[in-house]
């Protein structure tokens, strides 16, 4: 069909009639339809927002608006239906990259027409080895540094800066389309340029030395910005080129495989949490005479002793609890003798392939002292649960385990994370066992190992999975411990000082520690606009336009580059939410630890509990509520200033209002997390597609797939035509596989509807529990496809989602805090939806062809 030109033809297309046909046919098409469809279908096509079968009061208004819209607005251009999805060029910029791409291909053609010269140049470079000569290399570095300094420090007029950032941005948009790590490096260069230029400008020309208050506020903000810049640049360095190490194969001859002790430390966790870990550890594929499992019980509980005896594993206790987990592990070191030590927190269930995936590198590299694998969580953390993000948006830990550790690995700076890792005994004993000086014994142990010249490695394949922290308060408690411990290491054993580390290792370690100091700067950013709005202090002493021209490129480039580097592991703007939630709580302990590293004790992360009702954690939220109130006051003051203040301050006021508004929404998202959603069941259902057989009463067998499973039960998708009629509580048996071994588990029907069967396990002995764990949680492939079906990160979509979450936070706040006002607030959503239903939209005929 050709694109219709004028208004009435658009109506025809919308009604599903070909406008190119002669008049009589068009009339016939209108009239000669199946009777019921004739009128209604045409109208329904024209007015998709109106339901003609159920007319509503505002429908005339909708129809009127739609007619005006169809008559006045040009429809989107039609594209032929394509078999593959076209690249979604950003609409306003569509022309620029397209033209640039054409220019690029012309350039390529020009270069390509002289392949001889290029090849000769490359060959000459290879022969002469320019890059192997230190002098030349350093000369090139120096030249680049001088040019960069020029680029960063040259003062520009406003117009020149506008042109400059415009160019930077255009280049970034083109480079962004190029896949591969080299283009990423290029984007990093652009981002560092924009950010450094911003910082230089801030230091050199935005501080007001004349007014003490302005200067004070300005310096505090500047310090926070310097910190952010440092973390940004160090982060780029750390993750510029993730190693993505593959597992090394083991020798064919299993007699050459070394002996391993598996340590499972526990303190106060219930046996129910520990059991699956022990069962799974017993199923790890390794020669039986070369693996010993030990339960290290700091709780000294009889129940655990009996369980260990029954299960046939070692049980180690000690007289005191000195140094908590680190002390527990160190004590076990003295009682065992395996050449390697695998450590699992008592709730981290290992897969059967754990040792075979990790041990290969030890046999290749004699100096290797540690192999770490990711911590994977099959239950939602408080962010995921309270915000409804589970398996949709990468969780907080994924950035670290998906990207940062892989980036560290390139620089031989992988950290020990306390669990899901293998350590070689000899180097560990050389440094005096697990470090006990700080509350983050794991990272400190790795640092000590690396100071001794030992290597560490990271394999980014989830080989164990556990429970995430249950409630926000527990989550914050855990992060406080990490933050405090990292600050302690920074003071007691600073990676920049002392012997034994390469520069890259020092940078990676220090970045990990500095990262936890973000509480203070985050609080500064959350309050900075108030300095102007409430106290009229010019924290950035510059016209609003200049501020925008410098700060926007800094933010846009950082978002663009980070989205590309981290997109698979953290969606844009979520870091803001995570940091905002923690800011207040880690600010104090890190500051204290920096000044007095001796203070602070180890607290165990509570897991396996149950949030048994919906509630709002007021105790945790009050700092954010205070910040919200302050920001709202600032907002009100700003609006007042717009109305009654001097005209030349309007741009600055607008800028600060915008900033405050963003802060308010960010705080709303943080508040949203504190609204704890009730958990229904104690054992978490894990969605996983496994083959299974249901043995029906009467001896018939039905092959099917699991929809999800847990320690308590499972759900199956049955073929619809064969779904049996099963009564509640009917006894069935379920077959699952562990490799090629098939095991049967008795169960009872909980619900059987349509093609879905839900059962709960009725296991009668420990042996069956062991087999069930080994057939489910401990499968080698259990966690591999966890992130399948997730959307790719898009920075603007991330921003929108975070801001929407902010609005949700205030709605929940009202629901819990002012139940009387809640109904009123509850009307806001429907009211917005109703208003949106009035808006005109493109009829289906256009939508189908243009999406």
């Amino acid at each position, binding site marked *: 069909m050709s694109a219709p030109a004028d208004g009435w033809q658009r109506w025809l297309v919308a009604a599903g009639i070909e406008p190119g046909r002669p008049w009589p046919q068009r009339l016939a098409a209108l009239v000669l339809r199946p009777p019921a469809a004739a009128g209604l279908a045409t109208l329904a096509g024209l007015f998709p927002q109106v339901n003609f079968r159920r007319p509503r009061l505002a429908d005339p208004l909708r129809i009127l608006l739609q007619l005006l819209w169809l008559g006045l607005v040009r429809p989107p251009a039609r594209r032929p239906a394509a078999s593959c999805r076209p690249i979604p060029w950003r609409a306003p910029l569509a022309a620029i990259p397209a033209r640039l791409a054409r220019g690029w291909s012309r350039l390529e053609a020009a270069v390509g027409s002289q392949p001889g010269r290029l090849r000769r140049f490359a060959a000459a470079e290879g022969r002469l080895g320019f890059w192997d000569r230190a002098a030349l290399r350093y000369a090139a570095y120096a030249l680049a540094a001088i040019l960069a300094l020029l680029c960063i420090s040259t003062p520009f007029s406003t117009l020149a800066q506008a042109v400059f950032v415009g160019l930077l941005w255009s280049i970034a948009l083109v480079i962004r389309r190029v896949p591969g790590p080299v283009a990423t490096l290029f984007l990093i260069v652009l981002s560092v340029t924009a950010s450094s230029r911003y910082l230089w400008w801030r230091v050199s020309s935005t501080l007001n030395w004349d007014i003490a208050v302005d200067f004070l506020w300005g310096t505090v903000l500047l310090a926070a910005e310097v910190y952010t810049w440092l973390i940004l640049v160090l982060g780029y360095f750390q993750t510029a080129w993730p190693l993505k190490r593959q597992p090394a194969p083991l020798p064919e001859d299993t007699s050459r495989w070394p002996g391993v002790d598996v340590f499972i430390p526990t303190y106060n966790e219930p046996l129910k949490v520990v059991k699956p870990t022990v069962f799974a550890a017993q199923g790890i594929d390794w020669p039986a005479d070369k693996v010993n499992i030990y339960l290290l019980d700091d709780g000294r509980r009889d129940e655990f002793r009996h369980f260990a005896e029954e299960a046939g594993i070692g049980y180690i206790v000690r007289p005191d609890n000195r140094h908590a987990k680190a002390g527990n592990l160190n004590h076990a070191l003295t009682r065992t003798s395996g050449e390697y030590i695998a450590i699992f927190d008592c709730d981290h269930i290992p897969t059967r392939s754990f040792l075979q995936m990790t041990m290969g590198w030890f046999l290749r590299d004699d100096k290797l002292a540690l192999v770490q694998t990711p911590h994977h969580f099959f239950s939602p953390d408080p962010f995921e649960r309270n915000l409804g993000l589970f398996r949709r948006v990468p969780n907080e830990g994924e950035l670290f385990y998906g990207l940062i550790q892989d980036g560290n690995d390139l620089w031989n700076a992988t950290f020990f994370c306390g669990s899901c890792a293998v350590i070689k005994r000899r180097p560990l004993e050389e440094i005096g066992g697990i470090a006990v000086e700080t509350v983050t014994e794991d990272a400190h142990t790795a640092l000590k190992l690396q100071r001794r010249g030992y290597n560490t490695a990271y394999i980014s394949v989830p080989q164990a999975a556990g429970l995430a922290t249950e409630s926000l308060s527990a989550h914050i408690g855990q992060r406080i411990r990490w933050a405090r411990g990292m600050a302690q290491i920074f003071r007691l054993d600073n990676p920049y000082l002392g012997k034994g580390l390469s520069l890259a290792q020092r940078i990676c370690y220090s970045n990990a520690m500095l990262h936890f100091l973000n509480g203070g700067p985050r609080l500064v950013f959350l309050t900075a606009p108030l300095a102007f709005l409430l106290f009229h202090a010019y924290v950035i002493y510059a016209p609003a336009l200049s501020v925008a021209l410098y700060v926007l490129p800094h933010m846009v480039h950082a978002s663009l580059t980070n989205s590309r580097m981290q997109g698979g592991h953290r969606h844009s703007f979520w870091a803001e939410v995570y940091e905002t939630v923690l800011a207040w709580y880690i600010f104090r302990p890190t500051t204290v630890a920096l000044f007095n590293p001796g203070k602070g004790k180890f607290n165990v992360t509570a897991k396996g509990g149950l949030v048994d009702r919906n509630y709002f954690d007021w105790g945790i939220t009050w700092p954010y509520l205070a910040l919200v109130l302050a920001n709202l006051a600032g907002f009100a003051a700003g609006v007042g200033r717009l109305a009654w203040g001097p005209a030349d301050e309007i741009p600055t006021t607008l800028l600060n209002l915008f900033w405050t508004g963003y802060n308010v929404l960010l705080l709303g998202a943080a508040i949203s997390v504190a609204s704890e959603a009730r958990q229904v069941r104690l054992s978490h259902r894990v969605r996983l597609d496994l083959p299974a057989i249901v*043995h029906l009463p*009467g001896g018939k*067998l*039905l092959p099917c797939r699991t929809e999800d499973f847990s320690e308590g039960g499972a759900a199956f998708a049955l073929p619809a035509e064969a779904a049996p009629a099963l009564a509640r509580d009917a006894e069935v*048996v379920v077959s699952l596989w562990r490799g090629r071994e098939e095991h049967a588990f008795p169960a009872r029907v909980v619900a059987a509807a349509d093609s879905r069967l839900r059962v709960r396990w009725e296991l009668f002995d420990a042996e069956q529990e062991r087999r069930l764990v080994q057939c489910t949680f401990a499968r080698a492939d259990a966690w591999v496809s966890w992130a399948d079906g997730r959307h790719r990160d898009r920075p603007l979509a991330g921003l929108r989602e975070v801001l929407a979450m902010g609005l949700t936070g205030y709605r929940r706040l009202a629901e819990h805090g002012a139940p009387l006002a809640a109904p009123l607030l509850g009307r806001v959503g429907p009211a917005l939806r109703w208003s949106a239903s009035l808006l005109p939209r493109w009829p289906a005929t256009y939508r189908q062809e243009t999406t």
Partner: protein
Amino acid sequence: MNLVAVVPAAGGVGATTLAAHLAVSLARKRRLGAAVDLCPGNALRLHLGMDWQDAAGLATQIAAGHPWSDGAYVSSGGVPFLPFGQTGREDGGARLAAWLETQPGGLGGCLEQIRLQPEGILLADAPRMPWQLTRQALARADLAILVAAPDAASYAGLPALLEGVAAAGCAEARVVINGFDPRRDLDRDMALLLANDPGLDLAPVMVHRDEAVREALACKQTVFDYAPSSQAAYDFEALATWVVARLGHRSRQAA
């Protein structure tokens, strides 16, 4: 034409059931499966829907002096098959074997006369007794499927059977477990034992004990018609796929 001999390791392990279902499954895969019953029990035909009263078949045709090929049938599912025939004599098998030995090429020569396409697969449901018949089938077979139940009787019978298969000159013999029930400890243990026994090759597919199989026979059907979404149907399907792959692999090796 490929000939696959299905031989039981012990009595009552379900070799005939397995042969019938393999033939039907292969036919459904457009692999031109066909079956011939060499067991004097004459039970194969029941799976394929033949009339209980009809006594015709290979042995009866020969005993009556008719061309044996006149005893062939096609099941409603489109599977050509040759029943043994209701001879009513105890030594029916031995007499057939004796007659076949008088023919050029023996049983193999006769089966060659069936004009199956080159990629077609003929399943021979071979008995343990009389062995002469089975030996003739094995001599021509491209693959022998030794059907074992996951129990001690089958396990005890397998070594002798394997020797016999090798002596008959069959190129490849694979053991298939039939009637596996994961709820029974012995079944799981026997499956592990057979899988780890270096003396025999276990096929990667095993057939579960599924009530649908017995019910299907009671209705003179295969599970493909009686309970198409049952585990047994799934298993036989998988076994047929494995047989096709196995024969393809062998013919590639030969080429």
